[in-house]
């Protein structure tokens, strides 16, 4: 357990305690909702961590560095944006993947782009978006968000 873990746990426990004192019923409801969300996301987490385990064995750090490392230049965030926009799943699932990639010497730019594209681009919801908002809106938003996820990644790579 890191300091961040302990800090978050203490903050959460304090928030729950205050909430419990203020309103027990609502706090119980909140705990139930949290538990349900946890149970819902758990299978996906198992898949993600199993996949990370497989990647560790099957894909060498050199391969990841070659694909998403700083030496790739502009191509690294573009590849990350493509991967992030194609993939679909809970946002929580992308964090362990991003951490794994960062540990395997992927660049900050690529990882930040992947995280942003995974959450923001929304290729899976594109058909629904076209149905509701129209083809032009949906495709323009998709393209602009795709480009922006790369820009966010590049700025982060520059700043961090």
């Amino acid at each position, binding site marked *: 357990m*890191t300091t*961040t*873990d302990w800090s*978050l746990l203490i903050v*959460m426990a304090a928030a729950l305690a205050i909430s419990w004192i203020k309103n027990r019923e609502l706090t119980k409801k909140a705990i139930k909702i949290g538990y349900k969300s946890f149970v819902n996301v758990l299978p996906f987490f198992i898949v993600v961590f199993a996949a990370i385990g497989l990647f560790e064995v099957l894909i060498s750090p050199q391969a990841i560095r070659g694909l998403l490392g700083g030496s790739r230049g502009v191509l690294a965030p573009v590849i990350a944006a493509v991967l992030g926009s194609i993939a679909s799943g809970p*946002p*929580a699932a992308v*964090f*362990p993947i*991003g*951490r794994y990639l*960062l540990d395997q010497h992927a660049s*900050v730019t690529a990882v*930040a782009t992947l*995280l*942003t594209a995974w*959450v*923001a681009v*929304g290729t899976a*919801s594109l058909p*629904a*978006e076209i149905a*509701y*908002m*129209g083809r*032009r*809106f949906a495709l*323009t*938003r998709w393209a*602009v*968000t795709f480009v*922006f996820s790369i*820009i*966010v990644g590049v*700025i*982060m790579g520059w*700043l*961090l």
Partner: protein
Amino acid sequence: MVKEKLAFVGCDSRLCPVGRGAPYRGKNGGYHRCDNVCKRCGDACNRLYLCRAFSGLGARRVYFKAPGERSGFRGLFLGALLGTAIHGPLVGVFPLLKTLLNKGARLGVVIAIVSTWAIKVPMIPLELRFFGWKFTLVRQLLLFASAFVMAPIMERLIKNVPVLRESKEEE
């Protein structure tokens, strides 16, 4: 006219984006009114997200004005705040966005909502755990700031906004 200046996501029938029904006054005023608006939207997801958004803002009776065409930075800021408060699948937000556009909301406000929707407040502790404070803070700030850049760009790219909106006959 109201439509010209304000589109509204919220709880008062006078500014209701969907219709002008009589306000439903229950004991728990804010939620009932919110519920009333959402039922009119005809989508259970809307109800969920609006109520979540309002409860997230910590107010039982919230007037949330999503400004119209002549709104400036303030409109985008309000849209960005609403987008940050909303969480869940993007699919569930489209009916709300469509309603906003139909009621005269500025396209930029809608774009700001979609842009900052990518900020997942409940996921921030998890991101902190994996990437640390600096990475998380910078990324979240950039995501929030991107709304103010994306909105004008999208407005320029989609000049023919009325096409997005339903005509009065269709309504």
